[in-house]
């Protein structure tokens, strides 16, 4: 009896709470409007929502909330904002408000608020930071939908930037619409090996002859047999194998077990199961042999093993973990960052991933490596789009965002390079140059190779488009299988690729993937891919169009 009364009361309480909650919350937006944003009276909202207004009309400047992907939070954002606002307010009648979100907090500080409906105008939403998720959760506005509430934003307010971006636009469309406006940066990221030059010289290795694990075995053996090297492991790997993997990187983000072969320019490929490919298994088995021979650090497969530390200390001979950037750009960057003045690295781009030898391939993942989106909660997407346009077209805005205020955060050298002031709190606080507008229009830092952009562009110039460039998988229908599969592959993936327990677990691992629904997922991906392919036939051997800056 008392139970019944209790449950009845409980239900009543819930109803009461729900009822009580309703009026409070439904009136609250107008409260918000009064105190926080000047243009948020519900009626005004409506007007804005129905007719895209010309932004340069008179009235209070709109404040664009820019959720900035950052290294850390900084107190310098106000200084940079002030400088930018002074410049942009006459141009677009809007001001900018950077909210610097430390990268690790992105989910809690941006996605949670966004899902609760908080106002934001620009967010960072690349391929690898929930691009597809945000779209399928309905959080982003389509930027090129003429039927949308604000019309075709990007072609109306940023036509030149769109043209300049070329395939960065076409490759990022999902279901026919674009939701993220890319940063212009390097597009193909080739695989290769990173060598420690000290040991290359000591053992007199011709690194251009080492393309695969098999090629390096003799050197690894030589290394461990040398008593001078006690306690040092020659092969530094946490499972990367970009140097000889026959697959493209990140064919379907978040679904590691399904991949596509790189193949040769102009060839068609089909989705396939990563772990069942003979190359994958052979690689894991070789790694197991190496692991047992003591070529790798015995803890390579554990999360707390960090390859950076061994790289920085120069305690390795060759590493498979780094993807390259053309020329010696990556090696130079790593050396500069290592803080170890004695470290000498040399990179070598391998060519055995396909039979043509040209492994400079443009794939979807890299096209979407850095994008900005406009959330549905924006109260003025037009202003947001105009601001994004400025980031691509206006070098004043671009360099203010990238380097801060001249004289405060950096100095300009005589030859036009940026010389950042120590601890200036800006250029190390934001997420990096590659998150901002058009990277090739930014000023280069004084301590970098002046030819950096040329090297990166040269690499891009000889690149070719993979047949899957622009394909994106919408995972909603098989989400539960993907979850089950992720748990399995998360557990085993790194262990397998570093050669731990391959003989014992490999087949059971593949079986577990199937039990988790690999076949269903593979079928769903294949189906979507074929449907997409029918609409987007491959342009055979299409070279990458590069528009060098004016």
């Amino acid at each position: 009896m008392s139970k019944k009364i209790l449950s009845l009361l409980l239900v009543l309480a819930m109803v009461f709470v729900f009822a009580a909650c309703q009026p409070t919350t439904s009136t609250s937006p107008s409260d918000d409007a009064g105190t926080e944003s000047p243009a948020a009276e519900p009626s005004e909202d409506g007007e804005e929502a129905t007719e895209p207004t010309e932004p340069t009309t008179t009235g209070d400047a709109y404040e664009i909330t820019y959720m900035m992907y950052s290294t850390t939070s900084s107190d310098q954002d106000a200084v940079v904002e002030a400088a930018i606002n002074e410049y942009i307010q006459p141009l677009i009648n809007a001001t900018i408000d950077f909210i610097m979100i430390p990268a690790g907090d992105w989910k809690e500080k941006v996605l949670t608020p966004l899902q609760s409906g908080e106002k934001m105008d620009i967010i960072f939403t690349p391929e690898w930071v929930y691009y597809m998720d945000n779209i399928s959760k309905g959080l982003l506005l389509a930027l090129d939908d003429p039927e949308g509430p604000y019309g075709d934003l990007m072609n109306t307010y940023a036509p030149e930037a769109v043209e300049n971006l070329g395939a960065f636009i076409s490759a990022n469309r999902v279901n026919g619409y674009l939701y993220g406006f890319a940063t212009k940066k390097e597009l193909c990221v080739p695989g290769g090996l990173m060598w420690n030059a000290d040991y290359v010289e000591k053992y007199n290795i011709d690194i251009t002859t080492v393309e695969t694990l098999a090629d390096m075995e003799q050197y690894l053996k030589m290394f461990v047999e040398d008593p001078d090297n006690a306690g040092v492991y020659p092969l530094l790997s946490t499972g990367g194998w970009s140097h000889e993997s026959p697959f493209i990187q990140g064919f379907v983000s978040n679904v590691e077990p399904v991949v596509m072969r790189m193949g040769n320019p102009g060839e068609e490929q089909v989705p396939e199961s990563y772990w069942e490919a003979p190359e994958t298994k052979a690689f894991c088995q070789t790694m197991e042999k190496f692991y047992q021979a003591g070529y790798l650090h015995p803890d390579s497969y554990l999360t707390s093993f960090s390859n950076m530390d061994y790289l920085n200390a120069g305690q390795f001979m060759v590493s498979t973990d780094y993807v390259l950037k053309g020329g010696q750009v990556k090696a130079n960057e790593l050396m500069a960052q290592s803080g170890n003045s004695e470290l000498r690295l040399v990179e070598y781009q391998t060519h055995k991933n396909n039979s043509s030898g040209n492994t400079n391939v443009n794939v979807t993942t890299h096209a979407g490596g850095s994008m900005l989106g406009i959330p549905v909660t924006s109260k003025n997407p037009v202003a947001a789009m105009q601001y994004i346009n400025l980031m691509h077209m206006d070098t004043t805005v671009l360099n203010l965002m990238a380097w801060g205020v001249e004289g405060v955060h950096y100095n300009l050298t005589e030859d036009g390079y940026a010389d950042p002031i120590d601890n200036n709190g800006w250029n190390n606080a934001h997420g990096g140059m590659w998150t901002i507008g058009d990277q090739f229009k930014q000023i280069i830092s004084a301590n970098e190779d002046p030819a950096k952009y040329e090297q990166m562009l040269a690499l891009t110039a000889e690149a070719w488009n993979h047949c899957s460039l622009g394909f994106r998988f919408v995972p909603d229908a098989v989400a539960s299988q993907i979850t089950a599969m992720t748990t399995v592959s998360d557990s085993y993936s790194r262990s397998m690729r570093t050669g731990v327990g391959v003989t014992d677990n490999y087949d059971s691992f593949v079986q577990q993937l199937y039990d988790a629904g690999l076949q269903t997922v593979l079928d769903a991906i294949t189906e979507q891919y074929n449907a997409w392919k029918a609409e987007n036939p491959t342009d055979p051997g299409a070279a990458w169009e590069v528009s060098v800056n004016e």
Partner: protein
Amino acid sequence: MTTTLSNETKRAIKKRKKWGSGEVKRHIAFFTMLIPGLVFMFCFNYMPMPAIVMAFQDYKLMMPPADSFVQNPFIYTLLNNDFVGFGNFSFLFTSRDTQIFLRNTICYNLAFMFIGLFFSVGLAIGVNELRQRFLAKLYHTILFLPYFLSWLIVTYLLYALICSNGVFNKIATALGRPTMNLYNQTSAWPLIFVIANIWRYTGNNSIIYLATITGFDQQLYEAAAIDGAGKFRQFQHITFPLLIPTIVLLQILAVGRIMNGDFDMFYCLPNGAGAIREATLTIDVYVYNALKSGAQLGYPAAAGLFQSVVGLIMVVTTNAIVRKVQPDMAMF
């Protein structure tokens, strides 16, 4: 004696429909005491509670049109989203791993409950009885310290102990024994988790028992001592019976969390080692993976609701059993 008396009073009060004058006044006082707590719970627990419907929805943010009565996007979305029934729960129950993570979650929780209880009560009694009060306090402070080390730090400590050239293997080598790799041994992990859990929480959990024991009437012990009862008999006949209500209560509460797990512990300690997942996969780890692979909000909401409902059923059942046996110890 007080217990039976109070029960009778309780029953008598229940039967009596009319309120006495003193009783009305007393209840007014009681209600004023409840107010601060009720306000807190209303604001932070009950106000967001209706959003539990998310578990049955395909949550997609919708912006309210300008003429909508509800202008809050979140509430508007909850009111207008499609209901998908129990669809969101399917990811929990259609996996091959379901059996594994349910088994692990429940078994680990039971192990932590009982073994933890033994150690916490033992520690409380030991510390309470020690003759050297200063040392007792010092011991307890030290035993309380691990509680402040996050699981992430513990992960590094464990790594230092059991990794390939960690302390254990160095000792093994020195003794001429073969080295072992615990990160690949499934059978070792239940023990590791239990030890880690006991190590981190015992000092902390014993505080409640310690505070309770401290509050006991010392005259009882003195009387017992005069009657010639030794320490063990005092424990048997005074401390333990008096401690039972607290023990029972804490176990009822623990039963309510039988489906929840100490996520950080299960996720961090294995350090990414794969072969041992049979022993390390719990429901929270599974849900975390769902989120990582981009599941929509309905999934974790569904999982949370499942954990809560199981907890509720467990608590109500346990409580009913306790009520049958010893009505005064029941929670409600």
